[in-house]
């Protein structure tokens, strides 16, 4: 327990900040995932074959390729891509992109692929009567989407979004390979300098367990609150 003292003697405060880092990366990635879902759900549902193909490629690739490989792509390829763009504008120095952004973006893309499927499923499960009813009332497309479809979709999507959140939260552990100091990375550092890996990795597991348990409770509450039917 001495190892967990706050301050210079223990790793308590470091692990606390690392936990905050994990939570913020996970939330950022989850929101980035929402952003991609809002782009790719209409793309996947569109009748245009090319758009449909693009949407399907996105969800297949980001759900079928290991997370670690995607993180390596962004970690090694990210700064290269930014430097390439910078070169066009005449900037030739080495640019290193932020590990937080790389991590959040790569996990966010994966999270987005799962969210896309969740929202698509929810939209498809709404009866066509809702769409027809809204149309026959003469509502504009945007109005009926925001006031009729969206609230129902969100309600139906809550349980599965809870799963996507859990996946996203657990995937953030993989960002540690890029050197971002979140729970896993901090435990790795602490384990290395104290030669006590068993203690620190079990402690990290406990932190993750607490985070996943609380988020499960939160999503269950949300589900109960919006379950009118």
């Amino acid at each position, binding site marked *: 327990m001495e190892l967990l003292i706050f301050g210079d003697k223990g790793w308590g405060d470091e692990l606390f900040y690392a936990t905050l880092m994990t939570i913020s990366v996970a939330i950022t990635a989850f929101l980035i995932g929402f952003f991609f879902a809002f782009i790719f759900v209409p793309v996947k549902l569109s009748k245009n074959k090319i758009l449909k193909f693009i949407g399907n490629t996105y969800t297949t690739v980001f759900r079928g390729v*290991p997370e670690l490989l995607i993180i*390596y792509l962004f970690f090694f390829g990210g700064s*290269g891509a930014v430097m390439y763009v910078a070169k066009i504008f005449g900037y030739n120095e080495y640019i290193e992109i932020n590990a937080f952004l790389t991590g959040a973006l790569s996990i966010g893309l994966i999270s987005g692929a799962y969210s896309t499927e969740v929202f698509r499923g929810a939209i498809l499960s709404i009866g066509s009567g809702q769409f027809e009813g809204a149309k026959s009332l003469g509502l504009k497309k945007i109005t009926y989407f925001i006031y009729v479809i969206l609230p129902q979709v969100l309600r139906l999507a809550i349980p599965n979004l809870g799963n996507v959140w859990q996946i996203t939260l657990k995937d953030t552990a993989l960002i*540690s390979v890029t050197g971002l100091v979140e729970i896993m990375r901090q435990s790795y550092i602490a384990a290395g300098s104290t*030669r006590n890996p068993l203690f620190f*990795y079990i402690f990290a*597991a406990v932190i*993750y*367990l607490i985070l996943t348990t609380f988020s499960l409770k939160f999503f269950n509450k949300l589900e109960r609150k919006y379950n009118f039917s």
Partner: protein
Amino acid sequence: MNLMIEKIPELLNATILTIQLTLFSLIVGIFLGLFFAILRLNKNKVVSGFSYYYSFIFRGTPLLVQLFIIYFGLAQLEFIRESFLWTVLKKPFWCAIIAFALNTGAYTAEIFRSGFEKVDKQLIDAAKSLGMSKYNTFYKIILPVGLKRSIPAYGNEMILMLKGTSLASTVTLIDLTGAAKYIISTHFNPVEVFIFTGSIYLFFTFLIHNFIKFIEKKTNYIYKT
């Protein structure tokens, strides 16, 4: 592209390792899953609680943590290094298999459990009215029907495990992701390598997907209309 062709022998070895890791973990995991799913149905609270917490812990923590506890953590204990277990636990390959199998076992147990719950009440009532014993009802009715119902969800778990084996690269194993990382860091061509290795993974995902579809069709004689 020339570089990738040059690297094919290395990637082939890496692919074989990925396949080995996936198959071994899935085979051990399916037995663990079945075992824990059956324990979960036990009336004894300690037994079913043990199964519940096994699933809860392994599903609630990242696979990376589990792998690190087994690979780095257990090596710290004196009595493990002196016992016969050390011959197994000092090899990263077996550590990875143990971690992956325990992880997929937890998810599989949950899949089978919900499969058992989905078995129609009428089937069980019918078995009861025929005077079948509890043991027979379970092994002749609930188990086969429940397992059949779990096939699609288990297919997803197989794909997740295939993706999960990429973590073996963090414990010095050169699997497909490990090889990809090595090539990227020596030749600095992330996009090319990503497309190449990514397609190999997608190919296996595709194979698993079709395998599951095939099995589903083969076993679907009950609900044929």
